[in-house]
C-alpha cells in the first residue's frame, strides 16, 4: 500500500457519489419536465368531458384524438419515456432504497416550483406545506 491509496479511495468515492446524484437529478429533472408539459397540455385542452364526441366508449375518441395531437403532450410523454430509461440506468448504479425516495421527493418539490413558475399555479402556503410534508413523508416511508 502506498501513501496515496487513501486519497485515491476518497476521490473514487467522491466520483461515485457525484455520479449517483447526477443520475438521481437527471431522473427528477426529466420527470418534472414531463409532468409540467403534460399538465400544461391538459390545462390547455380543458375539461375532457367537454371534448367527448358522444355517449358510450366511442365518445372517448374525441378526448383521445385531442390529447394525441397536442405537441405539448407528445413532448411531455417523450420526457416521461426518457425518465423511465434514466431511472433504469440510475437503479443500476444507485440502491433502490436511495433512488426511489430521493427521486420521488425531488420530483414533488421541483413540480411545485415548476407549477408556480411555468403553469402560474397559485402555490400558496398551504400547498407548499403539503409539498414539504409529502417530500419528507416519502423519504420516511422508504426507511
Amino acid at each position, binding site marked *: 500500500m502506498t501513501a496515496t491509496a487513501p486519497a485515491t479511495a476518497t476521490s473514487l468515492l467522491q466520483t461515485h457519489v457525484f455520479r449517483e446524484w447526477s443520475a438521481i437529478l437527471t431522473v427528477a429533472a426529466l420527470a418534472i419536465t414531463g409532468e409540467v408539459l403534460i399538465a400544461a397540455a391538459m390545462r390547455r385542452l380543458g375539461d375532457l368531458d367537454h371534448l367527448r364526441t358522444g355517449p358510450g366508449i366511442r365518445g372517448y375518441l374525441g378526448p383521445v384524438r385531442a390529447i394525441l395531437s397536442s405537441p405539448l403532450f407528445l413532448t411531455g410523454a417523450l420526457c416521461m419515456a426518457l425518465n423511465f430509461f434514466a431511472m433504469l440506468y440510475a437503479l443500476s448504479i444507485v440502491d433502490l432504497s436511495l433512488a426511489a425516495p430521493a427521486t420521488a421527493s425531488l420530483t414533488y418539490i421541483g413540480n411545485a416550483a415548476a407549477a408556480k413558475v411555468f*403553469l402560474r399555479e397559485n402555490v400558496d402556503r398551504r400547498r407548499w406545506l403539503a409539498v414539504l410534508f409529502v417530500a419528507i413523508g416519502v423519504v420516511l416511508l422508504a426507511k
Partner: protein
Amino acid sequence: MTHRLKPSQYAILLTVMLTASVGDTLLSRGMAQIGPVDLHHLPLLFHALANPYIISGIVLLIGFFASYMTALSWADLTFVMPATAFGYVVVALLSRFWLHEHLSLYRWAGIVLIVCAVGFVAGGPSRTEHPDPAHPSSHPNLDLMDSGAGR
C-alpha cells in the same frame, strides 16, 4: 369561484390513488417471479408479458395514466400531486393489513405526514383561475373591462 368537485371527479382522484400503487405492487410481484432481467436477456421481458401479475399491473397503470390526465384537465398539478403520493400510503397500509408486514415507526410517521398533506390541499381550491390567452373569451384586457360581470 370555489371549484367544488363533482362526485365523479372525486372518483377520478380515488382511481389515481389506487391504480398507481396497486399497479406498481402487482408489477413488482410479477417481476419478482420473473427474476432479474439485463440487456443480454431482453427476451425475458416478452416472457414477463405472459405473467398475470404483470398483465394486471400494466392494465392498472394504463388506467392510472388515463385518470391522472383527466384529473389534470380540471385540477392544478399541485392539487393532484398529493393524491398520487397518497398511493404510497395505500401500499404501506396494504402491506400492513393484507400481507401482515411490520411497519416501522418511521413509516407510520411518513403515512401521517402524507395524510396531513392531502388534508391541506383538499381544503383549498382545485384550480388556479387566470386569464388564458388561448381563449379570447378570457382575454386579460376583457377581464379588466368586465371584471366581476357575469361570474
